[in-house]
């Protein structure tokens, strides 16, 4: 069987995590979680993965604050953020649409984004619904800004934006996204149409997002699937047909 869309995403994200010492994954993030586990499998024991919101995979022992303290200390190399809206300046909105005091839509809230986005070197923006509704010109509420003024303490920031249609790189100098690759089955035209913000398209064409080779697929479907099933049984059952327990 050929690679499933989830497996393309998992492989693409794992490529962003290569050689990192410590990857943390937030709650309810099965694809980033699987990607982190794949990166760990490939690291020959040098990559550490913390998966939060999972009792079994939470290795912190100093209460809710430890993830943030740990990230502030520079001990977390990569983290994932999503957003109800993400805009072309990499701002993330997890709060509301419209006036925040009388919103048209209200989302859960910013969680730790207003901090982690500043201190984790590789923050990978991850949003499966790639539409003009989610990828907007300007977010209605900035839970966490994509970039900061000179002088603001900011060792961290956006590294990539991955959606169900494509992968964007981040141009930190120009403070914009640049299309890096288009996932198999999707087109540049579709992406331009479905993206609410302006972004750069490199001259000379945009490659297709690489699909996992057979060895990678084997690792994903055996060792990674087995581990992810312990944390996200429904996801594993749906994608890998892993038996739930």
């Amino acid at each position: 069987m050929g690679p499933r869309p989830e497996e393309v995403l998992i492989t693409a994200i794992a490529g962003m995590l290569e050689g990192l010492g410590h990857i943390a994954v937030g709650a309810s993030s099965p694809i980033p979680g699987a990607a982190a586990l794949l990166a760990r499998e490939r690291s020959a024991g040098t990559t550490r993965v913390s998966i939060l919101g999972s009792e079994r995979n939470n290795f912190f022992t100093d209460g809710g604050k430890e993830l943030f303290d740990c990230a502030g200390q520079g001990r977390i190399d990569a983290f994932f953020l999503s957003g109800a809206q993400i805009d072309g300046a990499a701002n993330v909105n997890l709060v509301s649409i419209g006036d925040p005091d009388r919103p048209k839509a209200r989302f859960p809230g910013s969680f730790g984004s207003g901090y982690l986005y500043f201190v984790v070197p590789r923050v990978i923006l991850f949003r499966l619904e790639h539409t003009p509704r989610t990828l907007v010109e300007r977010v209605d509420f900035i839970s966490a800004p994509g970039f900061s003024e000179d002088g603001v303490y900011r060792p961290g920031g956006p590294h990539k934006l991955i959606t169900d249609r494509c992968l964007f790189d981040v141009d930190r100098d120009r403070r914009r996204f640049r299309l890096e690759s288009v996932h198999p089955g999707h087109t540049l035209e579709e992406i331009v149409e479905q993206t609410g913000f302006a972004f750069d398209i490199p001259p000379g064409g945009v490659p297709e997002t690489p699909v996992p080779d057979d060895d990678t697929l084997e690792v994903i479907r055996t060792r990674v699937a087995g581990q992810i099933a312990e944390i996200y049984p429904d996801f594993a059952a749906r994608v890998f047909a892993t038996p739930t327990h």
Partner: protein
Amino acid sequence: MLATVVPVEDLAARIPDGATVALPPDYGYCALGAVHALIRRGACRLRLLGVPAIGFQGDMLIGAGCVETVETAAMTLSEYGLCPRFTAAVKAGTITVVDSTCPAIHAALQAAEKAIPFIPLRGLIGSDILARRDDWKLIDNPFAPGDPVVLLPALHPDVALFHAPMADRFGNVWVGVRREQMLMAHAAASTFVTVERIVDGNLMDDERTKAGTIPGLYVTALAEAEGGAWPMGIPGGYEPDRAHLARYAELARTEEGFAAWLEATVMSRPAAAE
């Protein structure tokens, strides 16, 4: 010194209207039995503080009209979706939401724990969280001019309310690695805890249980409440009642559905103390 041990309804009666009540997230130990008792006693004008997020218990309190403000990093039912009564109340403008971020809540509680008036925090600059917080200050780092940094005033909850697997007769409460509950107890003026069981002996006598124990010194009153987290579960104890939680998430989408859930689940349960 022996702990004050009371029935759950009495515990709820000790939490005054208008109090700022710190609550753990759904993945912590939630004192749902006490929350239901708060609703039964008609608590009002509560100011909820999520440490750092709140789920079902907050949505239930909001739906029952007990809440005036919520300060939190998030309100979420996780895999069960958005908090329906919270969302409705925000849209109707019947509660005030003070948006925060997880590390800001932890840090501001640590400031209260340390009895320091404020604490700095990195990040936040350029966010609308900061822009909308009149109570936070952006200053220039006195040690390195040209380095802006946010100062958060200490957060002093009136009440911390949570559940735990066990306590002893001296009021020592075992929370294991759920140390945000210890932080809440240190920071709050009063701490009320429901526990699955009150054990014999002293949790401080075994070095292993001692390491995860809140000393009775910080515990205002305890109630023994087996299954006191229901319909939530307790990590390492029992599982959440997923069917009930899913039904809640469904019913609470409408005011009528919530009212029916409330009547059937909370109001009609005989109060233990009556």
